């Protein structure tokens, strides 16, 4: 399979107005009133050729933007049928009284026109209805079949303008698709857009695959596979589909991740009952041993600047979370609460570490600061684990399993997401059962 990359040219148009906007969204507050938002259909330049008109982008693009913003829990999209102004005048000269009448606070309008050589120009504007000002205006140039990416990028721009935080909509999720009975599960690597669209399978399912992660540039994936019944870490090029064994270890390697600069893979290597954390430089193949302790050391996670690593160790007798410098020195335990701690993941913002906790037979997803203080549990469940951060460090994706009955039926796994505030817990639709999710960075790389 191939993932075609189309270049998108962004033209920064009119500068945004001063950001004292009466309208803004605070995403750190707990009790949130979603911001009433009106997303108008875009206006289609009548000179567009029929082939493009057939795509109905004038409603498809706003629909995708609306789904993104609604799903974030921060925006409340008003129904199109209540809109008074039509898309073209709304975009060129909005009558703010018409929009205030339906009680929206922000308005999104847009225009789609043809550029040279069959390329599209998609322009959007973000308006503050209350102060009757234009907040943002941007245009994107792209090929028509790349309209989803443009919609996600527009969603990110809107999110960013109103919250002050980077968005997370122009991203992908990789996970393990699961089918079949529990005693003989078939597992395949799958990727999809963060909104669930476009699921593609990257492996055939002939051997177990576990715990995939994107490289920072999102062109590679590392994961663990039981290919030829040898559990090892692999590197997969998403575009070419070529899979390479990572290193030449004489035993099980597992729990792989990329370093923030994408140059190394960090993972665990198990030997004689002891699992230690190693890195391997992808180009030079130089291997470095980072932990040296008879305990189980696994689930490593780099801080976003690459200077520290959080990891899971049972050197105290039970699973706890530790940090160390990226050269393996200065090991410090940071989890001290009741229960077992696992799967630490450092936020892309660097401020928090998310984790799985098992206490009194219940599983929790929680966050703590990188010194272990401020532990906060976000959600409790019969079984859930393995949080992964959205690129803006504000949303977590994880998976849950349900209990199976005494004959082994009924147990299933699904992906869920939750905001850092503990709100907006959502089931993520996947065509099959799903586990081990991992969120990519922003595809545009910023």
């Amino acid at each position: 399979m191939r993932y075609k990359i189309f270049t998108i040219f962004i033209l920064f148009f009119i500068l945004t107005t001063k950001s004292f906007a009466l309208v803004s969204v605070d995403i750190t507050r707990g009790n949130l009133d979603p911001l009433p938002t009106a997303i108008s259909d875009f206006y289609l330049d009548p000179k567009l050729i029929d082939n493009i008109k057939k795509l109905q982008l004038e409603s498809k693009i706003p629909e995708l933007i609306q789904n993104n913003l609604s799903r974030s829990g921060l925006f409340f999209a008003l129904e199109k049928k209540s809109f008074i102004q039509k898309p073209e005048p709304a975009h060129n000269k909005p009558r703010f009284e018409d929009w205030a009448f339906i009680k929206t606070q922000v308005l999104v309008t847009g225009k789609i026109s043809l550029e040279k050589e069959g390329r599209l120009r998609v322009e959007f504007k973000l308006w503050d209805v209350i102060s009757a000002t234009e907040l943002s205006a941007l245009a994107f140039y792209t090929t028509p079949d790349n309209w989803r990416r443009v919609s996600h990028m527009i969603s990110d721009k809107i999110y960013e303008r109103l919250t002050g935080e980077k968005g997370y909509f122009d991203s992908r999720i990789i996970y393990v698709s699961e089918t079949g009975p529990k005693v003989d599960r078939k597992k395949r690597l799958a990727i999809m857009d963060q909104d669930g669209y476009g699921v593609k399978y990257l492996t055939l399912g002939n051997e177990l695959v576990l715990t995939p992660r994107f490289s920072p540039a999102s062109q590679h994936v590392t994961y663990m596979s039981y290919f030829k019944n040898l559990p090892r870490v692999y590197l997969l090029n998403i575009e070419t589909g070529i899979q390479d064994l990572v290193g030449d270890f004489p035993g099980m390697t597992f729990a792989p991740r990329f370093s923030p600069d994408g140059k190394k893979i960090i993972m665990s290597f198990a030997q004689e009952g002891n699992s230690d954390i190693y890195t391997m430089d992808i180009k030079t193949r130089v291997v470095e041993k980072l932990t040296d302790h008879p305990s189980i050391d696994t689930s490593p996670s780099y801080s976003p600047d690459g200077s520290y690593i959080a990891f899971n160790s049972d050197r105290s007798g039970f699973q706890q979370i530790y940090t160390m410098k990226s050269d393996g020195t200065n090991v410090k335990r940071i989890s001290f609460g009741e229960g077992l701690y696992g799967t630490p993941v450092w936020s892309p913002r660097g401020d928090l570490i998310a984790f799985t906790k098992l206490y009194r037979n219940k599983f929790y997803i929680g966050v703590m600061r990188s010194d272990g203080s401020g532990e906060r549990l976000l959600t409790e469940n019969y079984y859930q684990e393995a949080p992964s951060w959205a690129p803006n460090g504000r949303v977590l994706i994880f998976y849950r399993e349900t209990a199976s009955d005494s004959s082994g039926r009924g147990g299933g796994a699904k992906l869920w997401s939750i905001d850092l505030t503990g709100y907006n817990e959502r089931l993520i639709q996947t065509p099959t059962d799903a586990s081990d999710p991992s969120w990519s960075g922003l595809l545009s790389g910023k």
Partner: protein
Amino acid sequence: MLFNNLSKVALALVVTLFLGACATQQATTTTKGDDAYTGTETVKFLADGVPDRVFFSTNKSELTSAATTTLGKQATYLKANPTLNVVLEGHADERGTREYNLALGERRAIAAKNYLISNGVAANRIKVISYGKEKPANPASNVLAWSQNRRTVTVKTN
């Protein structure tokens, strides 16, 4: 008089509550204690009288006395059949994080391997693999199933 009786009742109440609390405490503790499976369900045999697996307590990889008895029988059997090779598969139950369970399965397989070696089986006859929680013997979600899944299974490879 009344006060004496009352205080006795009060004392009885306090003791009952305390014992009740203790019982609850033990029932919800999952990380300590010896809960290795001691039954015969799911157990297969390498040969007459030689069980193919040993079981472990939650989060543990130490061999119980039942485990060493079984492994002793396996060692005897393997020494009597010196051309046989085996792979030891280490497993964990589903009540733990996936990556840690992979490591725990490996530790359980090595524990069994080391015992076989110390009982005279040549190391080059024994391979080891961990399946973590990926291949349960009993797919149910209950305490019994989980105890049956915390295991190291000896499988003949030739």
